């Protein structure tokens, strides 16, 4: 079932076209990431779906209902990007206020609020005024209020903005936990590494137009490019592999093998084993989401290439390694 579905969704602010026919589909239980530069239309898309902004054309449906109706809003949680919680509230009273507006019964609120604030890591400060909270703590309260009524779908606009690395890891864990429990999560984020780590599918928006959409794996895969790593001390027989008709080049401490049309990686693997070499790493090469994003926006230079000259390993390579590591385990 499509939890979020838009067909040719358009929205204008005067003469500015904020959404120019966006069509997307978010399935139940997935984490969907929406990427785009500032002003690409990401927040507008969420605001249209939640009924904060009206006057749109096309079709937008949420949980099978027309987007933005009061009824459907009772089934979603939302954390806006530049949230500004009334600072006369404490973390507890804020969740109590929003919970009451959402129709959560008093007894249920009293039970749920401490649990949620525990979950987001600020239970020990829940009776302090919000004005005393750090930006990261406010962000955690924001995520907490979005979960107050057990929503079926959660919209998070820059959920890890201003949160320290440990906090980001905690939030990632929380979101993955929510996904396990069946919640659908829609994320807008600038932190591409974060998105890459947790999103099942992503879409890239530019000037209100959807440029790319698909699973992270599919979008970042570079078909026909493999990375090979050997056991420590072993030398990759680059000349021999080239003689086999493959394009092979060193890349950091590994080797990149580029397959031509109709070629398979198997002959290379067989040759290496026949030479008594021990494979420690073999993966189809992927570009980082950032590379993909920049490429989509007209910057063709991959991040790895840009950083190579400075002798640095890019953040996205680290992310890729982390993903590979996660997948291995």
């Amino acid at each position: 079932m499509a939890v979020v579905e838009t067909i040719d969704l358009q929205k204008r602010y005067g003469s500015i076209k904020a959404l120019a026919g966006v069509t997307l589909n978010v399935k139940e239980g997935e984490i969907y990431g929406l990427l785009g530069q500032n002003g690409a239309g990401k927040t507008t898309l969420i605001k249209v779906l939640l009924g904060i902004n009206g006057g749109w054309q096309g079709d937008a449906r949420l949980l099978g209902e027309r987007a933005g109706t009061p009824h459907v809003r009772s089934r979603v949680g939302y954390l806006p990007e530049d949230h500004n919680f009334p600072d006369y509230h404490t973390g507890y009273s804020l969740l109590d206020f929003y919970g009451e507006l959402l129709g959560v019964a008093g007894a249920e609120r009293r039970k749920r609020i401490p649990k949620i604030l525990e979950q987001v890591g600020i239970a020990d400060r829940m009776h302090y005024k919000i004005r005393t909270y750090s930006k990261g703590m406010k962000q955690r309260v924001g995520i907490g209020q979005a979960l107050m009524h057990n929503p079926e779908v959660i919209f998070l606009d820059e959920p890890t903005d201003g949160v320290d690395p440990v906090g980001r890891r905690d939030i990632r864990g929380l979101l993955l936990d929510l996904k396990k429990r069946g919640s659908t999560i829609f994320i807008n984020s600038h932190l591409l590494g974060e998105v890459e780590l947790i999103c099942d599918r992503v879409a890239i928006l530019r000037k209100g137009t959807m440029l790319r959409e698909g699973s992270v794996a599919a979008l970042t895969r570079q078909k026909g490019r493999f990375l090979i790593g050997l056991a420590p001390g072993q030398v990759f027989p680059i000349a021999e592999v080239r003689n086999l008709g493959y394009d092979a080049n060193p890349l950091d401490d590994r080797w990149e093998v580029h397959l031509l049309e109709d070629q398979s990686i198997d002959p290379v693997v067989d040759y290496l084993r026949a030479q008594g070499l021990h494979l420690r790493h073999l993966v189809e090469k992927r570009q980082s989401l950032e590379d993909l994003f920049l490429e989509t926006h007209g910057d063709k230079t991959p991040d790895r290439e840009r950083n190579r000259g400075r002798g640095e390993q890019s953040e996205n390579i680290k992310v890729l390694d982390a993903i590979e590591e996660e997948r291995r385990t």
Partner: protein
Amino acid sequence: MKYLAILKDSLREAWDSWVLLGLLALSSLVILFAAQLSFKPQTAEKTMRYFFAQNMFQQPVMTEALNSRKPEKILGMRGNWSRFRLEKVELTRGEPDSPLSDYALIVAADGRGFGMGGNFIVPAIEVQGKGPVEKKKPVVDTKADIAQLRTLFEDAEEIGYIKIDAIEPIADDDGKGVPRYRVNLLSTPNTYRIWGTEPGVLFGLFTHEFFEIFAEPLGWRMYKLAQYIIAVGSWIAVLFGIVITSFFIPNMLRKGTIDLLLVKPISRWLLLTYKFLGGLTFIFLTTGYAIGGVWLVLGLRSGLWANGALLLIPSITFFFAILYAVSTFVGVVTRSVVASILLTIGAWVAFFGIGMVYRGIDLLEKLEKVEADRKEVDGQQPKLAEERWAGGWTFTTIKVIHAISPRTEDLNQLNDLIVYTDFMTGNLGNMNKFDNSNRSWWDSLLVSCIWIGIFLGLASAWFYWKDY
């Protein structure tokens, strides 16, 4: 439940700003001030003197008290009260100096009436160089004297404070030719309301003679006290209320705050209406505390329970609702606290100005009528229509503006009338006896309600269509 959530949120916001605390502290001070006052009953003689003028330029206190809302009537009486002087008060039944007793007043008609017409005694005069001229003989018209004397008591009798049993001439026993009359007054259960009372401070610790200058009939004294407290208190409360509530809407509409409310399952117009009602409830509660507190302590201290004055709580809240509707509209459109405060106060001043000007022309019309009646009685030519203020286009314009604008000043006058009627009679059913204004209070309420609807409707429409 959602309404309660927004109400609690508004109260939390107001409490956080400390202004609410200031308002409650101020209200508590007013209640404490009222609580330490004491009201000591005066003697029957001092009380009965309130029916008579101290001198020819000053009207009797009782006349002022019973006709304070009808200034044109006092003008119509043409100062005849100064002819009479109270000589003695005799107890005819009951305990001395009790408002439950009956009294006989011995009145001498030896004063000179101030104003034209009427019977008055011309004193002996000397003309320079011509020696003493012949003393004019006083003109005594007993029937006219009794009729005039009756006018001093008839207002009190009409409301039911006293009953005039009889007014009779007394034989000229001192030989000076001064006519004297005996006025037999019977008490009623309401006599205590006009009984002379002398206020004291610090729970009766100080009842120095100084306070005698504030001595007046009880109901009148209490009304004036309540009038000052309410006039000053309600202005301060409304001003504080405007400041406090002006934050509510712009703060709610702040980027990042409004999004979190708009995604809740509540329609925008309902959200705005709840926010409006939340502000009103806040004012209702604070006004209730102040008015209820003053009512309670004044009742306990004086024994005069003006229960009808509690109507001021919804009345002041309604008054505030007009201004808060303006504030809500400005807040929704501009999202600025400063603009909300300034424009709401501006609207308040404008409504007040319109009301006061209308009140002025209302009084002028009445005075013109009194003057025209007098001229008619005296056989003079009445003013031509074009010479009268009331006939001009200025009056018509003001009346039209007043008719179609929010009636905050009418509500002020209504509040005053409620307090006056309740303290003076204890029965709001008597309101029409003290109200001679040329207006229907229901009209005033209806027009004001329509304006509240217009401001809220415009604010809701703007809020509904606006993208945030």
